[in-house]
């Protein structure tokens, strides 16, 4: 049972574990990742409406994908936590919403590549999750709630507007404001 707070230091450790799987098929590294992420992924899926047994099945599939696709992990693009989140998100769309998840293909002949000016835009990649978490905690509750709802409720902004009785434009501008505040807090913490 791991009890370490998920600081940026443990985040960096997780990156190394995924790389060890890619390099040598390191099973103890996989087991450590599983112990840390599987219970959080189960929580994520249940927040989004899965029952416990379906959530557990999807978690297994996500962790199998982590094992199989470890070679495509790139810590310059995303931390292990972010990378695993995107796998879980896509698996949920596929399995529970029964939709395809369209993603751009880095090898697409039609892709417009990053220009030299884009290099410094990747500042949020890597070991920043702890800072993002701290920034979310520091927001006024109504703003952090709105951000959590955006990620943990499978609702379009129109649906949020309908359930909250607010005009769609108001919902959008509140989400936009909350994300702006979050961005400022993250930059302040840097």
């Amino acid at each position, binding site marked *: 049972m791991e009890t370490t707070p*998920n600081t940026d230091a443990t985040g960096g450790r997780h990156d190394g574990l995924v790389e060890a799987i890619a390099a040598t098929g390191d*099973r103890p590294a996989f*087991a450590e990742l*599983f*112990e840390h992420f599987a*219970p*959080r*992924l*189960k*929580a*994520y899926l249940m*927040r989004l409406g899965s029952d416990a047994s379906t*959530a*557990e099945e999807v*978690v*297994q599939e996500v962790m*199998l994908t982590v094992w199989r696709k470890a070679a495509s992990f790139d810590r310059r693009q*995303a*931390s292990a*936590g*972010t990378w*695993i*989140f*995107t796998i879980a*998100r896509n698996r949920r*769309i596929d399995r529970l919403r*029964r*939709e*395809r*998840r*369209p*993603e*751009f*293909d880095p090898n*697409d*002949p*039609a*892709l*417009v*590549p*990053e*220009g030299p000016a*884009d290099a410094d*835009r*990747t500042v*949020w*990649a890597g070991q920043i*999750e702890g800072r*993002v*978490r701290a920034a*979310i905690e520091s927001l006024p509750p109504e703003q952090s709630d709105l*951000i*959590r709802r*955006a*990620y943990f409720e*499978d*609702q*379009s902004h129109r649906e949020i507007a309908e359930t909250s009785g607010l005009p769609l434009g108001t919902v959008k501008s509140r989400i936009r404001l909350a*994300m702006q505040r*979050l961005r400022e807090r993250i930059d302040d913490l840097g």
Partner: protein
Amino acid sequence: MADAVPTFHPEPETLLGYAAGSLDEASSVLVATHLALCPRCRAEVRRLETVGGALTGSLEPVALAPDALATVLARLDEPEAPARRPAGPAFDRETLFSVPAPLRDYLGGNLSSLPWRWRGPSIRELPLAIGDGGPRASLIRVRPGTALPAHTHTGAETTLVLCGAFVDDGQSFARGDVSIATSDDDHQPVATPDAECLCFAVVDGPLRLTGPIGRLFNPFLRL
């Protein structure tokens, strides 16, 4: 064609919905296709995914069944199931370079051979089946210098330019640009005279079409 960077992007909340995974499939195809053409929004989606990773990491863990790890460890050496999606058709150069992969995956063939529908003398439309019960999606090609269909609508219409350009309300939209029309706009974009304009349009909510072309559209788009 120079790799110009788009000027007009999806709304910030739409990128958030895409990163969070709550956006419908048709709108996600539009975002992913824009991402192929827009390094700026690719970086933004990465940032939004970092927020998702951080939020998920801070959830109160929910214990799995005691044998969950053992079950997965036993499956690690299982052969991987073959990809469910069969390899698509081999596309010609025009299709390959005009239509980025996320949208190309939904085409059944090359641009020149698809079953385009006649929508007036200068407009062809190809409805695309993307997702169930979500917004309607279609490819639209418009002859140089002619107007795109004029309409008002009760939902938002999002248009991504793939080839050529159109001018709407004094602003020029070229490859990669996203134009967002709300239900308040009664707009009439016009393709620039130099080239045919190819667009991908996603329409949320029922249409109320006006004008002679609108009446022509109506029976089809109400489907």
